[in-house]
């Protein structure tokens, strides 16, 4: 195996053009190799020391998150926690403190697992992925990024350099919650993110989006009926969201849960994520991560 360390994005892109695979923390690659699932690539370029990829920048248009920003950075970043709370909810749940330090958001996105915790939040927050290769830079909607488990639209020589999150509308809130059998060291069996924007006056719904984790070959969005807009966020609406989420889910049965259970639980999670997003939109303080501040995961 050939190993190089890139100091700049350009160096990384040249290495990738020559066939190298980029790694940031490298955990997914190492675990897969150690468990004999897939050997390490012939050539690796480390991108974790490229300063431009480890930065978060905010301006009036929104936020630019470098692809090598770690989950540990995301879960405590004040702007993420305040405005893109679902992403903080998710980042704070990933694995353990060590995996949160090593694992990066770009690595997560490129790994393209339907069980990734940060995926559904990025979808409901209208994230865009910046992909660069030697000859072009492009941005695509995160919702168009994944094509199946472990598969994305990115070409082999394309490096994920950043995630772009648009400025949030006033009176917006978001949340991510997942099923956990224990309070740490979990992988999402089922999860859901929701984003809610309220009308400027009163608590009527102006916009809502919901996305689901680990119930389909990729992270998927839920169609919320248009009639929901302009209505109050009440039990009836939350029930409809739960039903819509369950209907959207096409889960599998495996050692973690049956399809039937997943289909039910994803509705519960969507309901809880939406309710919390609504609360946050209204200005309620609901701590991060949702899993440990509300409900069953509370201390």
């Amino acid at each position, binding site marked *: 195996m050939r190993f190089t360390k890139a100091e700049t994005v350009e160096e990384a892109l040249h290495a990738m053009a020559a066939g190298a695979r980029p790694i940031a923390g490298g955990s997914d690659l190492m675990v897969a190799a150690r468990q004999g699932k897939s050997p390490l690539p012939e050539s690796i370029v480390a991108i974790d020391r490229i300063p431009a990829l480890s930065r978060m920048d905010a301006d009036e248009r929104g936020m630019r998150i470098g692809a090598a920003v770690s989950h540990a950075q995301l879960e405590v970043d004040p702007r993420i926690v305040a405005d893109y709370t679902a992403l903080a909810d998710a980042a704070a749940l990933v694995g353990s403190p060590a995996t949160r330090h090593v694992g990066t958001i770009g690595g997560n996105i490129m790994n393209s697992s339907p069980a990734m915790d940060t995926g559904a939040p990025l979808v409901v927050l209208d994230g865009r992925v910046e992909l660069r290769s030697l000859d072009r830079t492009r941005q695509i909607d995160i919702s168009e990024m994944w094509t199946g488990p472990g598969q994305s639209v990115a070409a082999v020589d394309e490096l994920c350099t950043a995630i772009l999150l648009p400025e949030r509308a006033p009176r917006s809130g978001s949340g991510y919650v997942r099923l*956990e*059998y224990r*309070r*740490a060291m979990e992988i999402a069996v089922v999860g859901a993110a929701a984003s809610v924007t309220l009308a400027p006056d009163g608590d009527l719904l102006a916009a809502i989006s919901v996305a689901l984790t680990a119930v389909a070959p990729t992270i998927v969005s839920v169609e919320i009926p248009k009639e929901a807009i302009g209505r109050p966020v009440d039990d009836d609406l939350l029930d409809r969201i739960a039903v819509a989420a369950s209907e959207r889910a096409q889960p599998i049965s495996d*050692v973690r*849960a049956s399809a039937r*259970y997943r289909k039910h*639980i994803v509705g*519960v999670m969507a309901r809880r994520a939406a309710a919390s997003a609504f609360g946050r939109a209204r200005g309620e303080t609901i701590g991060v991560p949702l899993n440990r501040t509300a409900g*069953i995961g509370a201390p």
Partner: protein
Amino acid sequence: MVISESRPFLRADGPDKVTGSGRYVADISLTGMAAAKFKYAGMAHGRITKLDLEAARSIPGVYAVLTHKDVPDVRFGAIPDRKLFASDVVRFEGEVVAAVAAIDAATAARAVEAIVVEYEPLPIVDDLEAALDENSPLVHESWADYDADHVVRDRNVASFSSIERGDVEAGMAEADLVVTSRFEADASHAVPIEPRGILAQWEGDRVTIWSSTQVPFQARAGVCETLGLATNKVRIIVPHLGGGFGGKCGFHFEAHVAALARAVRRPVKLVFTREEEFVAPDRRREGMTIDVTSGIRRDGTLVARRGRMLLDNGAYTADADFFPQLAAMHLAGPYKIPNVLIESSLVYTNRQPSGSVRAPTAPQACWALEAHTDELADAVGMDPVAFRRLNAIDSGSVGVVGQTYGEIGLQQCINAAVEEIEYGSDLPPDEAVGVAIGWWPSFPGPSGVYIKIDDDGAGQIITGAQECGTGAVMTIPHIVADELGMQPGDFELIYQDTGAAPYDVGATGSQTLLNNGRAALAGARELARQLKELAAEHLEASTEDIVLQSGEASVVGSPASSVSIVELAAIAADNNLLLAHGSSEVIETPPLVGSTCVGDQGVAAWSAPQFSCHAVRVRLDRDTGVVRVLEVSTAHDSGTIINPLGATGQVEGGVLMGIGQALTEGTRYDEDGRQLNAGLLEYKLQTIADAPTIATRFIEIDTPDAGPHGAKGLAEAPNVATAGAIANAIAKLVGHPIRRLPMTAERVWETL
């Protein structure tokens, strides 16, 4: 109490462990050492039709590939039904077919890949009920030829036991109410954090084996039996042991590694991956199906119990031959029941062998019994705690096998645990408290120590006992020092080395302090006699008047007349050495009275039984079925507590393991009999984030026929009642018992 606040327990192996300087097997390397890897069957049941080693042997760096042809043709096990390597039929996925030694682990792994084995698939036996059918395929076609007259067996039933007392038919007829319940428990695992390691090195015709075993003398016996060696040719040394919980009991792979090392004429080391640790050892906690029917009077009095239990033995009988009787005792429970018939069968399947994992059979059987007991209380409209107070045995009670119990603290345990958790107080609607009681025998056995004091006054304790983390061996210097008026730190501990120490059963059956503690006490008293005689001569006093304290031997009543133990040691060094030994005396097992046990394995009447009551408060998420344990209060009668800090640690660890068994730890199999969750992501231990508050009380009852100073065993007892208590708390919230263990979120949700 030997260890008190004024003399706190600082474990002698602690500094090694907190600094990282302590060596475990995987940390030891020898010059020229080769790496071992096993070729496993990878399928649950099949006949080997082709075994081709040529490709593997031709890989550069591969030193040897061994199969059944390279070792003596010996069957071993509690029922001798297994050989070191499969020769004809493989009966579970983790069965060893071949072993490789190579220049490094990666080369050995490549060689394992290159071994060609072909199988004719055989029908898989993996259903306990179906295995009993007379038309069922047999796991062992030649079961009848195995030499095992000590068990009652037939076809796929490896061992059958029953407990019968009174007349169960008449008892049921006499009852006002009869309640029947059925439960099913999945298999689970011990999961020590250290995966096992074995390193073998031959010098001439002698082999030294460093092994992460809980039972070095048993491991030695296994190597001797399977390789045809005398005990004085095999030395087993256990460096620090990274946990066991029964998973490292028995004889496992020491002989394979020794055979490899002999073949390649260099040291060979085997270190398991986590997956191997799940799949290969013959120490899985057995799955179980439990049918239980009890007859009660309207006032709540138990009058009869009938039970039928099927225990999943897996493919081979490692040490589970006595499990049916032990399981039956746990389905009878610590209750007064005049009419009992419990029949219990250990059933062969094409799964990993079962074996002694911490309190074998008890957590599952107690879970079922205690859930059933709450159903009984409910049937007569009694509070479950009151029902237990009425029916549980007390001092002087006669139990189900006719044993009359002496001074015991079960009722006090119930009182303490429910008081601590404030049983009966108001709770939020999604919370409830459940209570369960349990029991566990103490296992008397042979054990020995040598104790000496060298010329500078420094002491040495050489014990056969094995430290698996519980601190039991670390307590031995305290017991010895206490007798000699010395300090625990005055003694070096030489332990877990069959080449140095007298016999001990090992870190199994919670027996270390019980037996080795008595041996240490006997040895220390012998050494005290030697010191006193020497001091009496030196001080011109009578031996009876000498007292040993604070490092001095002095004449009672005249403290000025004294000599230090250091001085006595110097005197002794030129003459009769200060050198003692001690053995644990035999404790008679109580007889069965008025009861019969078909297939008796000697575990129905119990010496120095231990008792416990656990009360847990849980919270249920009704939308998901997820249960969290918020608080546990425990009370244990394990006799006198010699080491409070160590004892509390045993209870807390046992409770947490019990929570895992109750909620998240269960082995899942695919339809081909292979484990689906042989890793720590999918087999979910409780994390520190899940750990509840655990309160521990000890009901200290000085028990004759127990261990040193009246101590009973302790390490397994805390693992008995937790799952049952959790079951009862969940049942209060959902209105019925969850009849499958573990009570996963999905299983709870399915019943809502």
